[in-house]
């Protein structure tokens, strides 16, 4: 629909081909882009599970007439939407009535929210030096403005404390960064963002960074994770059954804080420092991940003994995501390996830096070209013309390492570069489990932003109820 809006603005009429399950989203997206009359032609069912004959029959009996009609006649009238003002009181009532009203308007996540009253919102605004009306960005799919005010409102609702406001602002700055690709956040795989925090704020604000690092229960980790999803829904516009088209989806992820004591002990940079932020400073990191799993009971007392198993974990979590290495995109797949502190220290004891770990993983996380071709072709049909890795190398769409020969059993890397396998340190300091995330490629690219504190941060923090 985004493409169609661009074409229409260029003066050329369009029609968008949409499978049956996406018709509702297409209409919502059209409205969100300010063009409610964008032409839509439906393909019944889903093309990927139809025989050639079924597909032809469906296209000729349903899609074709809609295509012709959309290009040659305008049937709908334009709808003008009336919405509240950006800083308008929309309801007055008891806590139950507020929650019911917000739920009915799709403004909550199904769990009670804190009512965003004037006083609560202003308590959040007191923790930033930026003006409430400042616009951080305009976000697709609904072309809504992300403002400091809207951050405060959703922060209240999520159950955040006011002193989390600088982090919330940085998160939205990352969200609106074009590099991140927030406009894809309603995609079919239903990936979920993982937020990681670095810096002195971890301890100042009581983030959990040890046992249960990704478990709910700690207000900072939990409420900020919830804020992310509320903001994505209310301000970016990915509301359930509308612009959010996750097949299954998942709930928001708890914020993970790295164990910076251990990072300092072993001399490894933090995740935010890897992304170019100042070492030792406060920062947030975001990326979208398609899934994750525990790597249980890592056994060994040298780096190599541990890493061979960890490389296996990174390889096994990776499947269709290879379309973001070669196929749909090139070189954008960036899985994340989280080492528990004791495993990180064991690896570092062998003299391995984080870069050494990434180099080892890159060289030892390989799959056969046959498997790679299965994921990008046979299983998913995501590369036009069923081209193989070898074909794509010949077309200049993949590095030569992927086409060294036609041997289907040749081993190829799952990422382009060692640093594409990202590494963090967190979790129970004395348990030998690790965790690995598979990543959604350019659809939620790793992005990091510094957290900027307001003037008089120390005084304000002291005055806040901790």
């Amino acid at each position, binding site marked *: 629909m985004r493409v169609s809006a661009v074409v229409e603005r*260029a003066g050329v009429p369009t029609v968008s*081909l949409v499978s049956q399950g996406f018709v509702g989203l297409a209409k919502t997206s059209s409205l969100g882009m300010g063009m409610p009359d964008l032409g839509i032609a439906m*393909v019944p069912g889903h093309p990927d599970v139809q025989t050639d004959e079924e597909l032809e029959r469906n296209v000729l009996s349903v899609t074709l007439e809609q295509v012709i009609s959309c290009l040659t006649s305008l049937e709908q009238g334009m709808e003008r939407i009336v919405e509240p003002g950006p800083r308008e009181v929309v309801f007055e009532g008891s806590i139950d009535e507020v929650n019911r009203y917000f739920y009915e308007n799709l403004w909550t996540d199904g769990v009670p929210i804190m009512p965003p009253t004037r006083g609560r919102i202003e308590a959040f605004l007191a923790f930033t030096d930026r003006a409430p009306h400042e616009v951080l960005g305009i976000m697709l799919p609904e072309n809504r*403005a992300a403002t400091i005010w809207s951050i405060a409102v959703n922060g209240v609702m999520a159950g955040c404390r006011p002193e989390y406001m600088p982090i919330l602002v940085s998160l939205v700055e990352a969200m609106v960064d074009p590099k991140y690709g927030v406009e894809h956040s309603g995609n079919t795989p239903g990936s979920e963002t993982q937020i990681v925090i670095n810096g002195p704020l971890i301890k100042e604000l009581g983030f959990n960074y040890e046992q249960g690092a990704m478990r709910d229960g700690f207000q900072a980790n939990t409420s900020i994770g919830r804020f992310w999803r509320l903001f994505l829904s209310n*301000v970016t516009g990915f509301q359930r059954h509308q612009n959010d088209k996750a097949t299954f989806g998942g709930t928001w992820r708890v914020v993970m804080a790295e164990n910076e004591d251990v990072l300092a002990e072993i001399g490894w940079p933090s995740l935010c420092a890897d992304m170019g932020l100042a070492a030792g400073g406060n920062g947030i990191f975001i990326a979208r991940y398609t899934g994750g799993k525990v790597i249980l009971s890592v056994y060994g007392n040298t780096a190599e003994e541990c890493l061979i198993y960890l490389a296996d974990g990174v390889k096994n979590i990776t499947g269709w995501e290879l379309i973001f290495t070669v196929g749909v995109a090139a070189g954008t797949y960036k899985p994340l390996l989280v080492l528990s502190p004791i495993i990180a220290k064991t690896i570092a004891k062998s003299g391995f830096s984080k870069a050494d770990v990434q180099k080892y993983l890159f060289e030892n996380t390989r799959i056969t070209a046959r498997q790679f071709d299965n994921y990008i072709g046979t299983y998913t049909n995501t590369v036009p013309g069923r081209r193989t890795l070898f074909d794509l190398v010949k077309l200049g769409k993949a590095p030569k390492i992927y086409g060294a020969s036609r041997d289907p059993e040749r081993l190829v890397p799952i990422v382009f570069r060692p640093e594409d396998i990202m590494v963090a340190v967190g979790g129970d300091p004395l348990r030998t489990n690790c965790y690995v995330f598979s990543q959604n490629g350019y659809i939620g690219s790793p992005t990091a932003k510094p957290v900027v504190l307001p003037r008089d941060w120390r005084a304000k923090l002291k005055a806040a109820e901790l």
Partner: protein
Amino acid sequence: MSEIEATYSVYWPRGQRAFDVEPVAPKVNSLSGKVVAFLWDYLFRGDEIFAILKKEMETRFPGVTFVGPDEFGCTHGADEREIVAAIPGKLKTLRVDAAISGMGC
């Protein structure tokens, strides 16, 4: 003792839309003799669907011609922004009268 419930005046949690509603482009009165572009995200058998549409439209609309998706590039890859930004210029150069964009699945 009855509970006295507080009343809360609450604010709108959404963001203001940063646009006005726009009209779509004028339609073509007929597809006969027109140039139709296929724009594609290279997914979900769009190439096969375009081929079906093309064949039938050529039968129904004399003189209709088509510009394939390779002229424009993949509209949903890592280079999406650059490719989509270049589309209006290419539509003009290629004298396209109408466009079919897919696939939303």
